[in-house]
């Protein structure tokens, strides 16, 4: 099947408007007869469910948590981008579009990104109308901060809890529709397969996680909004339950999976402390507005710090290597995430890591505290303020900006980041790859849509900070509710979809058989045992730097772990009850397939772009020596994989990327 992105014709700035004007609509009386299933209730799924219900469709929404409000969008800290230009610093729709395409290392679809930038301003209006308490300045207007990879301040925020507030906004919109009976909410339910009838997605099979009951749900369209697959690494900043199952199930039923190797390793996370570690905690990128990243210049200082003979605060300015400021003077500490992560790895691989594991660098707020302190002394007209007074005043400002993050750090690490620099290290955070969708956000299964982090479309090979929230809400509030109408317009006479058909029988049987297998297998090793082994292979060989040999080994090793898993996995408890081990087993089984496809995709892509860094592809001379080298000649395409049984047998389909409005350039932040 040839991939058709269905991007409308015409100039980029008119595409979306013209398209909306001509798209098919479903009249309000007919919407009542149309059912839509939404899987996942984060920013994308929650906003889509609420908006579709407002429009009049009957929505069934599914979440594995006990409430839609707990989806992992809630953990997003820093902010949400929008081209409002409230700061008058030269921002515009075009500039947001340009920054996002450049930040994504020219591997995203231009038309989708432009649309995203176009609707971004509306998201802020919508959220304020819903009562989202964004940060404001003393004049009562909305405040902004700056994020990595851009030269303007366009990020709106609510302390370090922006994701929480935006999700509670979408959740409140859902609640209004639940109360009106337009959304039927299925909490503690997990989708375990999609049902395809006559080539169209017509329902799902879900497990009630409290009773273990397997349920059939039909609809005229199915929307997957189940988030990313970062937990394929076992350790990531994702929630413990975050999983790829819904996305992987539709892949196995015909949805192509695009660019799985594009994964974001976030530069500022709390370093791991031991083998028992269950997850990694992110420290918002917004900290890089005021924090300076460094390691000691001299190896003897590194050793002294590791052995506890010296403290970081003992080192003078010229004994420190602010390596981001040194390597990238134009963007300094605010280079994009992929660049910052690789730079940290480079220093730690060279032996300059500052903790016992050798995998940590400093994020230091001393300069910011002093700068703010002096500013405050001036504002409050305090003459000849002592150093202690300046520090006190400065710490107050830093606390107001990042207080909850500093508190979180102190609770986890047991050190006071106001007094001593934080230690940070990169960790898996976000997956730019995902289910392939066209301009309508429809997958290669007709009637099956994919939105938010679960799809691949807007971030190319690297996502800029504060853009995930923007994309989730853009898809759910402003894009899908339009585009889905074009498809559903043909379904106004279809009537209710029956669940008593052979397609539902077969899908349900496959789900039940797999559950029975897990319960009866009586192996010798726990699910986590296999998940941790998979994670280690992924991190070591498919992590921040990849090469041909390592990727080939990874594919073979993952296959072997998978085979062992199906022989040796042990799941205690029964099928007809709440059984967290059974839930994990199903998810890890899918990760064990996805991981291999991930490595295969990384092996195929013999270039470095964004979060995907191939050691064989670096600039060898000139100003950019040692930086990632992209190959536009051969790799300016989306890699969409078709399922053919074993992950290794997946078939590659290419969507060639055309850049008509942006010139492809080496991404320089120097």
């Amino acid at each position, binding site marked *: 099947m040839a991939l058709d992105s269905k991007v409308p014709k015409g100039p980029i700035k008119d595409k979306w408007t013209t398209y909306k004007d001509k798209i098919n609509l479903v009249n309000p009386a007919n919407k009542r007869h149309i059912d839509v299933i939404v899987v996942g209730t984060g920013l994308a799924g929650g*906003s889509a469910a609420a908006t579709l219900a407002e429009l009049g469709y009957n929505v069934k929404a599914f979440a594995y*948590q*006990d*409430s839609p*409000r*707990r989806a*992992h969008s*809630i*953990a997003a800290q820093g902010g949400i981008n929008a081209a*409002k230009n409230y700061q008058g610093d030269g921002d515009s729709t075009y500039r947001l579009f340009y920054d996002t395409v450049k930040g994504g290392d020219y591997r995203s679809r231009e038309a989708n990104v432009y649309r995203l930038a176009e609707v971004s301003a*509306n998201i*802020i*209006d*919508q*959220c*304020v*109308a*819903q*009562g989202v*308490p*964004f*940060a*404001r300045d*003393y*004049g*009562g*207007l*909305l405040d902004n901060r700056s994020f990595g990879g851009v030269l303007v301040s366009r990020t709106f925020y*609510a*302390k370090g809890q922006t994701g*929480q*507030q935006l999700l509670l906004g979408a*959740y*409140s*919109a859902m*609640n*209004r529709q*639940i*109360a009106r009976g337009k959304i039927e909410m299925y*909490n503690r339910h997990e989708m375990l397969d999609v049902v395809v009838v006559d080539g169209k997605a017509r329902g799902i099979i879900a497990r009630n996680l*409290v009773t273990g009951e397997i349920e059939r749900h039909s609809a005229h369209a199915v929307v997957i909004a189940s988030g990313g697959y970062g937990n394929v690494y076992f350790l990531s900043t994702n*929630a*413990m*339950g975050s999983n790829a199952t819904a996305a992987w199930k539709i892949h196995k039923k015909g949805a192509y999976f695009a660019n799985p190797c594009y994964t974001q390793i976030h530069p500022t996370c709390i370093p791991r402390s*031991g083998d*028992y570690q*269950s997850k990694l*905690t*992110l420290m918002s990128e917004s900290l890089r507005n005021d924090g300076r990243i460094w390691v000691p210049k001299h190896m003897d200082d590194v050793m002294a710090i590791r052995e506890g003979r010296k403290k970081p605060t003992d080192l003078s300015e010229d004994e420190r290597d602010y390596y981001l400021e040194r390597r990238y003077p134009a963007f300094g500490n605010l280079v994009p995430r992929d660049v910052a992560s690789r730079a940290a790895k480079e220093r730690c691989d060279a032996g300059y890591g500052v903790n016992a594991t050798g995998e940590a660098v400093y994020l230091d707020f001393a300069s910011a505290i002093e700068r703010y302190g002096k500013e405050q002394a001036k504002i409050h007209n305090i003459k000849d303020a002592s150093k202690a007074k300046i520090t006190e005043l400065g710490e107050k400002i830093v606390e107001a900006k990042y207080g909850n993050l500093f508190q*979180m750090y102190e*609770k*986890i690490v047991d050190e006071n980041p106001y007094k001593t620099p934080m230690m940070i290290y990169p960790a898996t955070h976000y997956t730019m790859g995902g289910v392939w969708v066209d301009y309508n956000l429809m997958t290669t299964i007709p009637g099956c849509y994919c939105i938010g982090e679960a799809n691949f479309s807007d971030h190319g090979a690297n996502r800029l900070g504060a853009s995930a929230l923007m994309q989730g809400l853009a898809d759910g*509030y402003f894009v899908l509710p339009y585009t889905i109408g074009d498809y559903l317009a043909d379904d106004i006479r279809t009537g209710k979809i029956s669940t008593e058909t052979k397609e539902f029988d077969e899908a349900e049987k496959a789900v039940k058989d797999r559950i029975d297998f897990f319960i009866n297998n009586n192996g010798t090793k*726990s699910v986590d045992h296999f998940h941790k082994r998979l994670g280690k292979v992924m991190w070591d060989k498919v992590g921040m730097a990849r090469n041909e040999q390592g990727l080939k080994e990874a594919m073979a090793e993952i296959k072997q772990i998978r085979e062992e898993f199906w022989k040796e996995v*042990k799941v*205690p*408890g029964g099928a007809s*009850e*709440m059984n*967290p081990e059974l839930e994990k087993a199903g998810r890890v089984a899918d990760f064990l397939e996805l991981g291999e496809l991930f490595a295969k995709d990384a092996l195929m892509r013999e270039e470095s772009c964004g979060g995907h860094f191939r050691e064989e592809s670096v600039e060898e001379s000139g100003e950019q020596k040692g930086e990632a080298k992209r190959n536009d000649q051969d790799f300016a395409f989306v890699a969409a994989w078709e399922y053919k049984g074993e992950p290794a047998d997946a078939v590659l389909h290419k969507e060639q990327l055309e850049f008509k409005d942006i010139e492809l350039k080496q991404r320089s932040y120097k």
Partner: protein
Amino acid sequence: MNLTLKIWRQKDSNTKGQMVDYKVNDISEHMSFLEMMDVLNEQLVNSGEEPVAFDHDCREGICGMCSLYINGEAHGPDRGVTTCQLHMRMFNDGDTITIEPWRATAFPVIKDLVVDRTAFERIQQAGGYISVNTSGNTQDANAIPISKEAADEAMDAATCIGCGACVASCKNSSAMLFVGAKVSQYALLPQGQVEATERVLNMVKQMDEEGFGNCTNTGACEVECPKGISLENIARMNREYLKASLKG
């Protein structure tokens, strides 16, 4: 460190539960409390026993899923943290730790340490929203200036994670801190004024119907709240409720 754990085990909502003793050894002080529970569960799985079911998800203190009552305190002995952020450095070698689910009539036990908090959902559905559709035509976000003070106060109330520690800590199993926080967020913002009367009446009515107790101002909820939600929110809700009742 080596620890003895006394944990509430209950097969399902229809079966009677009991406390069961377990031992875990070599626990690092750097572990989080839930990582210690992971160690116990791995131990149980390997010996063929059913692991202890407990709610958890983000493990960074924001989703509100985790909900353990540890040594008689919601989210354990530390302040300003959820169970997932509680670290084992708060305990000593040889300690016995008692772990129970939230205890409240309105939060029935589903299994072991997992409780049903859907009562909170129904309270929110009764009015915890502003009735505005997603049209793309809402007025500009800066059209109504909101004083920094009001915005910050609304944010402080909105920071509630809906974990239910307030209910679990209250001798009356009152949900007034939770409901007060939501009512306050909207009461403090101009967008919330239009529906203020109906909102507070409906949410309080639903709260009462769910079987939560009343507030007797002991302040235990505020002490145990991982997000530091202030008692002022209860006072504000009471004022809003009185105002709304007078309006009829």
